[in-house]
């Protein structure tokens, strides 16, 4: 009879790493989404081009390859990252590229009449974006941001390939040591699902908060 408590502890340690990666990766992705998404709407061609190149590159190459680059290739350029740093970097940049398109789409979805009201009230570009456009665009972004965060959570499993001891990595360790596949992989299945459900609930709450008063009526 196997004593499972130690192995479950191992998986829970891995769960913490997965949560850490998801939180930090999402934070980086969020920053990149706004930087690149608003960059694509810039009136400066150079900024637009830079943002477009970033988005197309990170959407167009595999997260797996990006992760290996961050961890194994960057050291040749003199940049050595810990597995956690490489994981956060690759996940954040990858998911941020998808998020950027969400930001751009939501900002563009705000009607011309809101921009015109801002001009008539003499609000400058920054004030327009900060006080009028983004607060209305945010509720439109949130559902897709929730999707992206869940994608990122599931994407964290690839970091086990650069020997980061995340949940999937620990499940494989447990499987190797006990010979049981069912129990460790059922455990992480449930844990991934629980985490994704928590993200959904969190985003749903944010959505309700952010869209307070915006009842879809023409204003």
């Amino acid at each position, binding site marked *: 009879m196997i004593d499972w408590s130690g192995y479950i502890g191992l998986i829970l340690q891995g769960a913490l790493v997965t949560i850490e990666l998801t939180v930090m990766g999402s934070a980086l992705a969020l920053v990149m989404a706004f930087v690149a998404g608003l960059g694509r709407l810039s009136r400066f061609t150079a900024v637009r081009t830079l943002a477009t190149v970033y988005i197309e590159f990170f959407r167009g190459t595999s997260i797996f390859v990006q992760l290996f680059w961050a961890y194994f290739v960057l050291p040749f350029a003199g940049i050595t990252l810990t597995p956690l740093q490489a994981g956060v970097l690759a996940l954040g940049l990858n998911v941020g590229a998808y998020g950027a398109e969400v930001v751009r789409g939501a900002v563009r979805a705000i009607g011309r009449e809101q921009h015109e009201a801002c001009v*008539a009230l003499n609000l400058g570009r920054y004030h327009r974006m900060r006080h009028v456009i983004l607060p209305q665009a945010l509720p439109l972004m949130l559902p897709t941001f929730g999707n992206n965060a869940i994608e990122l959570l599931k994407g964290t499993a690839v970091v086990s390939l650069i020997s980061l001891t995340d949940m999937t990595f620990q499940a494989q360790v447990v499987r190797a040591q006990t010979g049981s596949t069912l129990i460790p992989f059922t455990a992480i299945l449930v844990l991934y699902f629980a985490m994704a459900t928590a993200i959904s609930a969190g985003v749903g709450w944010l959505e309700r908060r952010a869209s307070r008063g915006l009842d879809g009526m023409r204003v």
Partner: protein
Amino acid sequence: MPSPIIRIDNIMKTYGPLTVLDGLSMNVMPGEKLALIGPSGSGKTTILRILMTLERINGGHIEVDGEQLYHIQKAGSLVSADERHLQKMREKIGMVFQHFNLFPHKCVLDNITLAPMLTKGVAKAAAETRAMELLDMVGMADKAKSMPAQLSGGQKQRVAIARALALSPKIMLFDEVTSALDPELVEEVLNVMRKLAAETDMTMLLVTHEMGFAHDFADRVLFFDKGRIVEEGKPDDIFRNPRQERTQSFLRKIIAAGHRV
């Protein structure tokens, strides 16, 4: 005789192959209440949008309050104005839109205080005091904390008027401000505008299909067709004795459609 507050000199406005304004010139005197009428597509709304810098002109010059709107002097020659100049000029002008364009995520009070606080650096308390005065004037003081979505069209438009007034513009532009309203809500907005005309010496330009209101409100009526002023004059002359055939046929159609004159 004072000089005009708005001088429009030979302006052109085209959208691709379509010419909307074709060498239009007109002056507006300080404090004058002007009604711009005419069939849709005649260019009357475009003039307001150009004055609000929502559309650029393709030729000609506009002077507002003694300064070029779209041009600045640089090294002795007149060049296109930059954003800074436009921002300075926009302080003189306010606009109320057909579809209100309130900020749906902000309550009535915040809709009004936002621009004065951000563009003029007015302190929150002072901005709110002024906003409440304006809301009182438009009869909306009890709705200060309501969200725009909770208001009727007429109420929204009255808030939009208060919002534009909060920046104390010298010139107010009203672009078909009652066209999107249910008929029974039109009068409450018109009443606010009557009050505004009576109590302030602001210059007002009004694009409207409410001929009765234009008649009572305006010092001068301009009839537009195909980007040109076909006829202008005192409201009595335009509405009772239009001289141009085009003005006559337009007014006949309007009356046939059930609008009172």
